[in-house]
């Protein structure tokens, strides 16, 4: 099956220019503006990199969005460690994979993984204790495969030497232009604040850009997620008091309220009087043997691939979920012609059925998709890529029968979210040696958190909390801090955002 979706039922495709690029000596094609990793996936490249220690193959969508996720890092035009999932294809670039010799497809060091049962975690502390010579040799061998790349390009040196963009004061910085950040920026700007809105993505909208399901709006209506994201983004772009910085990363949040932002043209040192943290959340992976095989993907990554990039992750998917989101993504996959081999839910039938209802109104069974409630994923099969899964009844739930083997080339995992709370923790954690700021920890004056970063997973709720936070911050001022009404950090970090529908990663 051609991975490219040419007749998406819900979202029009806007990328039209087909461009060529070089991949390890071959000429491949993709669409200008799509992520390089997407172009590779659509061209049939499933192994994007190798893991550092055991040299296991790694593919697209495995830990997408997690901080410093290395799984699709590529060397592009000699610059190593470039995140393939977040780098738009321009055409004409030269792309190579990393951490493998002679190639990621046939990595000789992959043999290490064959011995992995004999190489437990922390093995490096147990080997060569009594032989400094062997330890030294091991160090040298590690050196052969250490590091992402082999060269430093003049381009990288020139970019590093580029002067910074200097300092900027602003009334409000909003980090994250997802639904909560956009709503917060608009509310604050409407109330008269000058706002700088920072987002890592190539365009604003966040996770909502990939959502085709309808989202309730405060006026009582509803709109498909991607349409709502586009509308909010357009309003922000047109607002005279909002400056949108895309492709930009807030590097940290330092003493004195300094917020350096890495933009495509250099580092801008922001000094905001107020800060709204709307950094969203991360999909959580599940623990099972083979959970890192290319083809095992997080639901959010699948949604982006299908609804933004118009590329199918594979032809036959097993969807493992413990929340409504997984069912929504399953339905969206079906709508673009991906066969669903089974929907697997560890929870009992009635709870699973309730979450399935919105996406499968007459029940999953009626749609012809096998619905294995009370079942869990025992393992993913396949070496270089996923070829199937083994699913078994969950003890103590309503699952019955024996373990079954299902063939598939994609495993979609939806197991709950974790707030992207790094900016908050940078300030709250290090005040003392305590590991956990604790529930209800007061944020510094003039700081608020909204949306996924506050543990809110429902987009409609993220929209209202974002708008509310923006409006509250507009009412607060450093001269009159008695006004605040700024809500405290709502949950204990680490617990925030483990919504009721998820149960962690123990399954």
């Amino acid at each position: 099956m051609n991975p490219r979706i040419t007749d998406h039922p819900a979202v029009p495709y806007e990328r039209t220019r087909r461009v060529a690029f070089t991949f390890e000596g071959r000429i491949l094609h993709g669409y200008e503006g799509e992520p390089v990793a997407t172009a590779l996936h659509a061209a049939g490249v499933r192994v994007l990199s190798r893991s550092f220690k055991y040299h296991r193959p790694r593919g697209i969508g495995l830990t997408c969005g997690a901080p410093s996720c290395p799984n699709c890092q590529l060397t592009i035009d000699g610059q190593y460690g470039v995140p393939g999932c977040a780098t738009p294809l321009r055409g004409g670039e030269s792309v190579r994979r990393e951490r493998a010799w002679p190639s990621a497809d046939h990595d000789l060091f992959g043999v290490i993984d064959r011995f992995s049962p004999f190489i437990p975690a922390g093995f490096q502390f147990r080997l060569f204790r009594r032989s400094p010579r062997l330890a030294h040799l091991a160090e040298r061998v590690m050196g052969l495969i250490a590091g992402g790349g082999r060269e430093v390009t003049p381009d990288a040196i020139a970019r590093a030497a580029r002067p910074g963009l200097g300092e900027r004061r602003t009334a409000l910085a909003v980090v994250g232009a997802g639904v909560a950040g956009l709503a917060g920026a608009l509310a604050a700007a409407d109330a008269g604040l000058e706002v700088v809105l920072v987002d890592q993505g190539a365009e604003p909208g966040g996770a909502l850009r990939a959502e085709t399901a309808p989202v309730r709006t405060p006026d009582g209506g509803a709109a498909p997620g991607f349409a709502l994201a586009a509308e909010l983004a357009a309003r922000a772009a047109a607002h005279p008091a909002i400056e949108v910085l895309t492709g930009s990363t807030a590097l940290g949040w330092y003493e004195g309220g300094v917020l350096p932002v890495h933009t495509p043209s250099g580092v801008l040192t922001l000094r905001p009087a107020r800060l709204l943290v709307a950094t969203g959340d991360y999909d959580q992976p599940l623990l099972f043997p083979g959970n890192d095989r290319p083809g095992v993907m997080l639901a959010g990554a699948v949604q982006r691939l299908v609804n933004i990039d118009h590329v199918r992750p594979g032809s036959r998917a097993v969807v493992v979920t413990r929340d409504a989101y997984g069912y929504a993504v399953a339905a969206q996959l079906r709508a673009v012609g991906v066969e669903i081999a089974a929907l697997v839910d560890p929870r009992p039938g009635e709870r699973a059925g309730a979450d399935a209802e919105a996406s499968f109104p007459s029940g999953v069974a009626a749609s012809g998709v096998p619905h294995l409630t009370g079942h869990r994923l025992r393992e993913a099969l396949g070496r270089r890529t996923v070829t199937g899964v083994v699913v078994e009844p969950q003890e103590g739930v309503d699952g019955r029968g024996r373990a079954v083997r299902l063939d598939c080339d994609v495993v979609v995992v939806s197991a709950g979210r974790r707030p992207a709370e790094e900016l908050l923790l940078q300030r709250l954690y290090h005040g003392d040696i305590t590991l956990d700021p604790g529930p209800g920890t007061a944020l510094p004056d003039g700081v608020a958190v909204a949306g996924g970063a506050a543990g809110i997973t429902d987009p409609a709720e993220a929209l209202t909390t974002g708008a509310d936070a923006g409006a509250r911050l507009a009412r607060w001022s450093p001269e009159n801090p008695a006004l605040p009404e700024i809500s405290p950090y709502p949950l204990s970090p680490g617990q925030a955002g483990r919504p009721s529908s998820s149960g962690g990663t123990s399954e």
Partner: protein
Amino acid sequence: MAIPGAARTPLRRAYDVVIVGAGVQGLALAYELAKLGVRDVAVLDRGYPGGGGSGRNGEMIRSAFGSPEWSGLFDESLRRWRTLSAELDFNVLFSGSGYLVLASTPEQVERCRADAVRQAELGVRSEFVTAEEARKIAPEVNPDLALGGVYQEHAGFAHHDAVVWGYARAAARLGVELHTGVTVTGVDVAGGAVRGVRTDKGDVSAPIVVNAAGGAARRVAEMAGVALPTRTCRLEMIVTESVAPFLRPALATLELLGYCHQTARGEFVGGTELPVPDVSDSLNGTYDLLLDMAAKFVRLLPRLAGVRLLRHWAGLVDQSEDLSPVIGPVPEVAGFHLTCGWVYGFMGAPATGALLARGIHDGVMPELIRPFSVTRLHEGRFIQEGALVVAAEEGEAA
């Protein structure tokens, strides 16, 4: 997460020795005490093992210093470092790939030349290197900053977490009890002698209490009524993403007040200091120093241009006026011992642990640590160590 070496039994009410602080100093001491047959040793920490300076330092190890006091202690330490993995039955990833102190001005070159001569007199293995030799040892270094230096071929660096885990496990095997999550709130002193400690988990009596509390050492000393003439300063470090090996030895530069090395996995680890000590007890990394480190290290090693940072952190040192450690008993409180005031505490730990344990066991401090007694600070007999790469008073590099 399982804490290596953590006790599985509850905190008892009495021990022979209580050590405050499960950093590399406290754990090395506990291990060495147990090895000498001292029973009932407890190490208490409010956080986790290595959570302070022991897990935040630059991991670098050398013995080429300028004073007889430092050279003696640190050469003994380097000797122990080279066999520490076998000693602890745990690979601490010691890498004896050399330690180069770089000189970048004619004055610094002369200083290095003099240091090397003095080190030879003190019996420390090191060599003065010319600009050409320095560039051969570290070819990626900006030649403008490599006019010469002092090189120790058998020095290097180790994995600081592994060292902490190795000591903790080895100590536990010998019966030492490591209790984490226990905050010492007071030190009991009566009749001029220490009686034990008070903690948030109850009182613990012990005839010997050792203050190995790192950045919090001054506070713990105050609990015993002892005023340490030290001050708490913040140091910061960065680590980059893994890059192909380009730097073999550990490197320190007098010009940039910086020190760095590259791990076997390819990460570049380093820290710089501003000319004036950063008196603070905050563990927040600062943007000013992040910029300082980035600019200086790209200048020192141009191939770091464009390499991304993985982490940036701060740690605390509680340093004395002569920047030398404070080791041994406190005269006015019998049984109360110190191993604190450390700025080079990681590299000094293997020797100090063994020597202080011997001193506590025998009742007489061994010669190599005797010069570091706290009385020297009260009497103004400062140790004249001129080969450190740290920020000192009045904008002078010590």
